[in-house]
């Protein structure tokens, strides 16, 4: 009788799995953050999206490509191949609407920060994202028109590889070497692999997180400022609302317009950051954009003085570890 009951439960479980699209979790490594064991295929998910990064690797090196100053990772989403912009400034995986227009979507109202000004966002679900040796199943994604990025940089862009996918790992970004290393870590943030020991850094900074996005403190003109770390930004950004003493150290080199996704044209100033320091390390002159970041600060619920983009990340190798909440930097040789 007991055996029959067990068999009945087993059959019931299998049927439920088939009907609801439930999938058993694919891997559970010792010490790794346990992936969600069940994912619901067609049901709407509220709250945080469910991610299940899987793969048999402990550490992997992913070759990066570049288009202009965009950093690209090649990937395949539901059998559509293309490039994803490595974008730590994006909270989620964001897909280019051009290629996923036929997916069923829901429209969500964004939590709007202090002023509540953020609008709506279109969301969908993909079955599989694969890049290098990493596979992620059943991912909720944002949809956005990204055709203008393709037109300006001449490459097929499937979307933005945002922090929701990347936060599970220790990431080492080497822009000069055009590679991204990704490591699984234990609950203390230490690498599980024994073949590639942790790096020795020139500088270690505290890493903070707001809505999945990474922030750190750096100094300009001796003032501590709060920066968003955005590998998707082709330029650094300084907030026009930064202290006068800070802005006075920036040489303004030109004025132009800046185009963003669906946001038309904005007036921006370009300049050179002359007095930028990370901890005790002075960083050589870097290009920057000066624009107003009030709305962005509202959205993340914290003061944001700037964003660090491509020109900053090309200065060295950067290890991002959200478990340890620290960023380690090995500066390139030419860096004083």
């Amino acid at each position, binding site marked *: 009788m007991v055996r029959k009951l067990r068999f009945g439960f087993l059959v019931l479980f299998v049927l439920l799995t088939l009907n609801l699209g439930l999938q058993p979790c694919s891997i559970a490594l010792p010490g790794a953050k346990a992936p969600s064991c069940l994912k619901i295929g067609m049901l709407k998910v509220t709250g945080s999206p469910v991610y299940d990064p899987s793969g048999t690797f402990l550490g992997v090196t992913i070759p990066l490509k570049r288009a202009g100053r965009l950093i690209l990772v090649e990937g395949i989403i539901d059998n559509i191949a293309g490039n994803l912009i490595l974008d730590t400034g994006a909270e989620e995986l964001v897909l280019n609407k051009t290629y996923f227009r036929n997916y069923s979507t829901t429209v969500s109202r964004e939590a709007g920060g202090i002023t509540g000004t*953020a609008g709506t966002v279109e969301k969908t679900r993909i079955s599989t994202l694969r890049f290098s040796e990493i596979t992620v199943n059943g991912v909720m994604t944002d949809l956005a028109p990204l055709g203008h990025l393709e037109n300006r940089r001449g490459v097929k862009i499937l979307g933005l590889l945002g922090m929701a996918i990347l936060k599970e790992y220790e990431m080492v970004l080497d822009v*000069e070497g055009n590679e991204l290393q990704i490591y699984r870590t234990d609950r203390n943030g230490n690498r599980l692999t024994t073949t590639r020991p942790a790096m020795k850094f020139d500088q270690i900074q505290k890493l903070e997180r707001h809505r999945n996005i990474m922030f750190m403190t750096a100094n300009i003109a001796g003032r501590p400022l709060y920066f968003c770390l955005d590998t*998707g930004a082709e330029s650094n950004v300084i907030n026009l609302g930064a202290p006068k003493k800070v802005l006075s150290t920036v040489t*303004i080199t030109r*004025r132009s317009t800046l185009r*963003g996704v669906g946001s038309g044209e904005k007036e921006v*100033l370009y300049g050179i950051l002359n007095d930028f320091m990370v901890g005790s390390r002075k960083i050589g002159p870097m290009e920057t954009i000066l624009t107003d970041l009030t*709305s962005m600060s509202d*959205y993340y619920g914290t003061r944001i003085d700037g964003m660090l983009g491509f020109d900053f990340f090309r200065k060295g190798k950067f290890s991002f570890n959200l478990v340890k909440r620290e960023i380690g930097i090995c500066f390139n040789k030419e860096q004083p």
Partner: protein
Amino acid sequence: MRNLHVLIFLFLTAVFVPGARAQYDPAKVCRLDDGKMVFTIDRRWNAAQIKEVSTIFDLDSALIAGAFSGKTSLVIKGSAWTIRKVDATRFDLEKSTGATDQRYNRNEIILVDDKELRIAASALRESEPYGVNRLTFNTVIQAGNNRIRFFLPGRQNARTIYLSGSFNNWSTMQTPMLKTDSGWTVTLRLAPGKYTYKFIVDGKWSSDPYNKLRENDTHGGFNSVFFCYNYRFILKGYQSAKSLVVAGSFNNWRTNELKMIPYRGSWVLSAYIREGTHAYKFIVDGNWINDPACKVNRPDGMGNLNSFFSIGDTMIFRLNGYQDAQNIVLAGNFNGWNQGELFMTRIRNGWELPYVLGPGNYEYKYIVDGKWMIDPANPNTTGAGEFTNSFIAVKPNYTFTLKGFSGAREICLSGNFNGWSQTGYRMNHKNGVWDFSIYLQPGKYSYKFVVDGKWIMDPANELWEDNEYGTGNSVIWIEP
């Protein structure tokens, strides 16, 4: 001594007396001051300096003229400017930074200006008219039928090696190499031409260590360069010669570049040469000679003859009838619309001219005794009215089709490949389908059909993107 004092006095006067010399430093023109951007301009600057500042900082010429004419405020393109006089020659142009009303878009990607990046990209895209390989080891071997075998020796401890290059759109996942007992290999079939490539060894980019031909990858490294050959120069005999070089119109007649090598009683050189018609000669120990095996020798305009060879498809341009015409000339964008170059030959029922063209899109017309006309036998045309030209695509690689619309009088194909011309490429109507074949380089293209003047997206193409009019453009990608 007195002269020296006078000189020093004049120098100091020029440097320090206000008004004697205008300071010009674009880095000091703009500053930020309490929510305002302030541009300081000086009326003593010369016209070139004012123009430079106006360009760098996007300052309207009306604003600068207004400041110099004594205005104290102006509205330019909807922005309010305040003009303050600093001293007798300098003015501050002030404007609010006023960006606080701009809403934050969380999926925004910050891009820098394209200008600098475009220059780098266009330099890379330049197609080479010719080339020979410089390998120190056979890492790239061309076999028959344009099959190219890439081989990277050793690397036995590597887990994965991929080949990435211009032939696969620099894909990092598409072309894995197979491990053998002596290295890693993969074979591809490529069209003749120039290719750049790298290996990806366990995720790390590596140029070919055995290939001396390389070019800057614009990211601080080098891409290896390989030419898939399509031509072989052969000169029989001359076995006692010490050096033999081939030079021609394809390499600007450079005399020390394309050295031939002795091979089984002949001198040979394999190379990639761009499609088209080329003049050439051999240089045997410093003496120029024509190719004795070449049947086509033409005057060089200086009393000598050059040998000629052609690579590519020969198009036969034919115009039936016009038996009474004195002369008929072919002119097109392939020869700069030259009216006195390509004279057609009279044949039994008309006129014809064979001409070699490489892959591409071409417009042409016939000039019959001085009168321009389109090709009556070619239904593909572009332009309108007297600016209508015949159109031909050599080796077309994409055909646009539109089903239905059988009642339409005219349907044109318009896209970024023809500058979005409304009278772009006129499509053919055949068996209920409108079509147009075209040659497109690899890349992304957006397009629309213009049905009797009305713009529509391609109903059979599910790929489209937003445009500035909110009506959408259809999108295709042409892969290498």
